[in-house]
């Protein structure tokens, strides 16, 4: 009996292969399929609600899984976007610094050492920052620090890989400056007022102040000549005072410093 069934199967197989598409077995199969079709449709209709329910639950599970996956992807992309934006901003800042270093405005006999700002003043009491360049990079004590906007301050402590910079706005800061238009000179204190401007000198609001960069015999200013410092916002004088009262707004925005150039002398400063 079993052998008979196997032989029948093989015979069916052989005949099916031998005959053409319109042969007897093919047409029988086609009729058989037509007969079975209603049963299949009935089976499908009976099972449809269960299939739909299963599909709904499956879809829900898939959606949850996909949702979690997409959230992960979104977070990763967001992180990447932030990194890219930060990198772009840093790139722009460094390009600006580079452009300044290569421009004629950059002090002669100095090279600019680009350094990222590692920490900013924690409060108004401390006007110092820490930059990522130290003695191993060639930073020296009292090296001037600038950005493309102007003077930032002076290196007051040098570590191996980082240095402390005292900002122009610090109480101890004093810089010799000159009025670019009238050559009136004075000393800028904590970044916002100029002292020692005699009454016969002319200083007006809107004038640009730059570092004086003086030298007298063996003594010389710590700052090279011609670094932009700030704009005069008001200038006045009183009869009881020996000098003019000059208020200044620095060019540099000290609250948003990201990177700076530490000036390293290429020749001994005279």
């Amino acid at each position, binding site marked *: *009996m*079993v052998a008979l*069934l*196997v032989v*029948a*199967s*093989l*015979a*069916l*197989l*052989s005949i*099916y*292969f031998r005959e053409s598409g319109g042969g007897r*077995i093919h047409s029988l*199969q*086609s009729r*058989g*399929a037509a007969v*079975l079709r209603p*049963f*299949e*449709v009935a*089976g*499908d209709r009976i*099972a449809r609600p269960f*299939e739909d329910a*299963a599909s709904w639950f499956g879809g829900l599970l898939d959606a949850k899984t996909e949702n979690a996956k997409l959230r992960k992807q979104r977070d990763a992309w967001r992180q990447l976007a932030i990194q890219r934006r930060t990198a772009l901003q840093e790139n722009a800042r460094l390009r600006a610094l580079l452009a300044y270093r290569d421009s004629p405005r950059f002090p002669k006999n100095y090279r600019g050492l680009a350094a990222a700002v590692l920490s900013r003043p924690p409060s108004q009491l401390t006007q110092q920052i820490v930059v990522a360049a130290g003695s191993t990079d060639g930073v020296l004590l009292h090296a001037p620090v600038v950005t493309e906007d102007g003077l930032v301050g002076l290196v007051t402590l040098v570590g191996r890989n980082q240095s402390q910079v005292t900002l122009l706005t610090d109480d101890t800061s004093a810089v010799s400056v000159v009025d670019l238009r009238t050559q009136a000179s004075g000393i800028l204190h904590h970044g916002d007022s100029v002292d020692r401007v005699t009454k016969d000198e002319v200083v007006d609001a809107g004038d640009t102040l730059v570092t004086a960069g003086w030298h007298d015999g063996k003594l010389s200013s710590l700052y090279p000549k011609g670094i932009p410092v700030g704009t005069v916002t008001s200038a006045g004088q009183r009869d009881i005072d020996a000098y003019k009262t000059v208020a200044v707004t620095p060019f540099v925005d000290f609250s948003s410093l990201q990177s700076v150039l530490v000036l390293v002398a290429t020749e001994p400063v005279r």
Partner: protein
Amino acid sequence: MLVAAKAAVVVFVAAILQASVFSSISILHGTPDVLLVVLIAAALLRGSLVGAAAGFWGGLLIDTENLATLGVTSLLLTIVGYWAGRYGETTGRDRSHAPFVAVGIITVLYAFGALFLHFVLDQPAPARTVLVDTLFQTIGLNLLVTWPVYAFVRRLLPPAERPERVQGVELLG
């Protein structure tokens, strides 16, 4: 005769459901083969002859429904039914794990057999898809439906009465 008719109806329903419902269920890329499980259950319960005949009938139905090469599935399922029946009559007799063992092994052998036949007949035989991507899932799903299917088939086709095993031999002479 009644048993044969019942078996034919059970296999017919299983083949219809397999083609219209279960073949569209895909869980982790695997599809349960309920017809195969029903056939194995019927063969284990009613013996190799019923198994072979049910396999031939089931294969014929599946090939007709799918307009596939007539005889291919019949040949495979006839052998499956016969083998499962013989297993039920001999080693697997009265053993509760027999359906699971038979379903697990036959699912693998059936996949290999189908691949071989398709290959010989110069029909598409994606070995990687059948043996690597879906076989384990199909085994799992078939094993999952084995117990309910076996219980259901057992209600419809109760096991045939078998003569008691020989307990001892008395030597004469």
